[in-house]
């Protein structure tokens, strides 16, 4: 699947990757794909599996996705951000399956002539993916227990588990 549709956003070079990956995210390859001599600013975010959660030692996470919906949603979020912030390139890729502590679960790369836009778009993309994409983590601890990842705490503010508070909005 193409992350970018050049027909819609001719200013955005296509980055030909899948938004979901069942194997290790290759940050080096993704960085080189996002490389663009027209972009003065490149921002990469990597969300990595922490070695502890709620006081317990994490062995690994297992990510489940509604694959067709998550793929479409990630592409749409990246495209919207690319348009809104006039990015020269943008991509996002999320792991599925077993991700060990210390490994990357999600990567977002945004490229722009100026750094302000690259940061803002990057934050927008990761916040929306985390809040909205139908992807779920199950934490497996070294003590043999497991736990489905809780959703965000936005519900305390919005009163709806599917309505979210976005920190990027005041920066857009």
């Amino acid at each position, binding site marked *: 699947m193409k992350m970018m549709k050049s027909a819609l956003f001719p200013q955005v070079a296509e980055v030909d990757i899948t938004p979901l990956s069942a194997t290790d995210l290759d940050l080096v390859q993704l960085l080189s794909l996002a490389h663009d001599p027209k972009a003065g600013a490149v921002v990469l975010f990597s969300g990595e599996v922490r070695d502890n959660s709620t006081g317990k030692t994490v062995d690994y996470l297992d990510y489940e996705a*509604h694959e067709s919906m998550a793929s479409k949603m990630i592409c749409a979020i990246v495209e919207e951000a690319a348009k809104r912030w006039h990015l020269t390139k943008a991509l996002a890729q999320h792991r599925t399956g077993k991700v060990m502590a210390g490994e990357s*679960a999600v990567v977002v790369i945004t490229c722009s002539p100026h750094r302000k836009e690259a940061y803002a778009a990057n934050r927008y993309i990761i916040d929306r993916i985390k809040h909205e994409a139908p992807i779920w983590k199950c934490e497996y601890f070294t003590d043999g227990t497991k736990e489905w990842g809780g959703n965000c705490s936005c519900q305390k503010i919005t009163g709806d588990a599917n309505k979210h508070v976005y920190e990027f909005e005041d920066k857009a």
Partner: protein
Amino acid sequence: MKIKVFAALKDYFDKDFLLEEDLKTIADLKAHLAQQQPKALALLNLCRFAVDDEFVALSHLIHENDEISVIPPSSGG
């Protein structure tokens, strides 16, 4: 209709199954699932529903061959 459930919902339901019941709306489906597994009610109340990969409202009318996904709140990233 064919039902697909995800994540913690699989502690209560098979990950996909067929329903033959006469359910008119998504709200009817939700009530039916809660009746089958009362312990899943709190989680079902947090879920969104999608038909053919598009989110739909509780008032959405179900067609016989719909594939309906029950989507818990995201916990990706």
